[in-house]
Every structure is written in structure tokens, then in C-alpha cells.
């Protein structure tokens, strides 16, 4: 990990991880409008320290969603599945 000021570079893995850390975890949310699929799990787990927040968020969201799907209550019309297995 660099000790110098971070310079964003699209080819650099750390840049990508920092981007992930910001864009997956934070920002404006319209209820029920986020629908992502995690195609490259290995990418997300590179640099675990940097990405704890995002991984937590994904796991928490997937966990909640799984509980909802297991419960007999009907799915809310605006909610969508966060699919961790598609596009592999």
C-alpha cells in the first residue's frame, strides 16, 4: 500500500478498489432501485482491509434479501434481487 498521496489510475487495482469502496457503499439511494450483480467476487476480496465496508454491505444486503425470500411474506413490488451468482 502506498504511503504517498493516492493518484487515480484506471489500470491500477488499488484505484479500482478505492472506487469500489466509494461507489458501492455510499451515495444517493432511491429505495428499491439498486440492482447489482457481483461477477468477480475475487476482485472484491482483493485488498480486504480497504474493502471491509463494501463487503460488509454486500453480505448484509444479500443476507437480508435471503431472509426476505425465505419468509412467507410477498416481495415488495419495488425490491429487486441482488444476485451474487449471475454473470459468472
Amino acid at each position, binding site marked *: 500500500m502506498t504511503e504517498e498521496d493516492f493518484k487515480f489510475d484506471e489500470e491500477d487495482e488499488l484505484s479500482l478498489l478505492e472506487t469500489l469502496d466509494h461507489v458501492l457503499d455510499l*451515495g444517493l439511494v432511491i429505495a428499491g432501485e439498486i440492482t*447489482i450483480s457481483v461477477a468477480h467476487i475475487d*476482485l472484491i476480496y482483493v485488498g480486504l482491509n480497504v474493502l471491509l465496508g463494501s463487503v460488509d454491505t454486500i453480505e448484509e444486503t444479500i443476507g437480508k434479501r435471503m431472509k426476505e425470500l425465505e419468509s412467507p411474506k410477498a416481495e415488495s413490488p419495488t425490491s429487486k434481487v441482488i444476485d451474487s451468482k449471475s454473470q459468472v
Partner: protein
Amino acid sequence: MNLYAYCLSDEMARAAGAGVGGAEVREFECGGVWVLVSEFAGERVGVTRENLLAHNRVVGDVLARTTPLPFRFGTLTSETRLRNYVETNRVSLLQSLGRVRGCVEMSVKILWNAGEVRRAAEETARAASGAGVEGSGAAYLLAKRRALAESEDLRVRAGEIASRLAETLGETVREARVRVRPEEALVVRAAHLVERARLDDYRARVHAARAKLREAEGRGEGLRFLTSGVWPPYSFTDVSA
């Protein structure tokens, strides 16, 4: 066809490049708020390098000229729902845009050697609680006391790191979102809202804070720093939808 939402602003903002999936980015106005979107064929957005970078490029392009409120990656919606969202939340969106105007987000992450720090805290707790206790009940209580002391020691040390960082940065930071997790390797995670005009001063102070913390470092903390920015104000978009 869904719309992919990137960011919104109270100034007309255009992005030059292509958006997620190579789609053309366009903007529409809704009650004084401009929203940047592109068409998206599909029901979910893949977390891929291309998509992440496309999202980042579009929002970053706007950030180069003004400070927008970014949507979270993967926001798929329709123009009708977006308009409803903006109309419903217009007041708080404009307040948030006012709050971040002229600013950018900067990030400081501090990692420590959690294993070493914990071992040092255990030693401190052991020394403080004494030894030579007889009987299983007393030993149990002693172990509990040590665990509490160890946890408190970690909490205090992590808090000191966060405080020293905040003190050194001082008024260069307009707002901060700081998470302190003493039990984790990523012990301090700070997002700072910084006025563009103060960025040089802020960067100089981050360097100073790093030097100070390194100097004061003890007991194998092994502090490491990752500073990054500029970012759109992802951590300062507190709008309840």
C-alpha cells in the same frame, strides 16, 4: 428500458464521455435539479471494471466543474420515478447540494497491526490486573476483567489516533464522517468534506498528521495510511428518500 442514474446537481452539468455499457449520457431538468442518466438494457448492473470506471468517469467529469450529489453505483430507475424522487426530496436535495457546494470529498484510511496491538493490550491488562489468583471463580473474574481492560485499551488507542488526525486537520475540514473500529485492521476510516480552495492546506496537514502519528506510534502499532481523493461527496449525501 431502464435509466442508469449517475448524479444530480443544481447546475446544468454535462458529461463528455460514454456511460455504463457505452451508452450516451444525457441530462434532464426537474424543478431546478439536473439529473445525469443513460439508457440501460437489463435488470441489474454487473460490478465489473468497465462499469465501475464508466460510473466513476461520468461523475468525475461533472465533479471537475461543479460538485454533484452522486447516486450509488447500480441505481437503475425510470424517468418517472426519478422525477418523483427529485420532487419528493427537492428541499433536502437542494440543502445537500448547498452543503457540499465548492467542496470535494477526501479519504484517509489508517490501518494498524491489529494482532500486535491486541497482544500489547493483553500485556497491559495482565500487568494492571495482577497475578497469582487462586480458585476458579476468582480466575474467571480476573480473566473477564483483563478482557474488559484490553478492549478499553484498544478503544482508547484507536480513539487517540482519530483525535490526533482530526486535531491536525483542524479547520481545513468542513465536515467529517469518521468510523473507528479498534478491533479491526482498518482502525480509522475518515471521509472529509474539503473546500476546493483549501485542498493544498488539507494535503499538507494530512502529511503532518501522518508524521505526528508515526512519531507517537508505539507498541508495534505499525500504522499505515491510504489517502485518496478527490472524490464526489459520496459520504455526504444524507437525503432520506
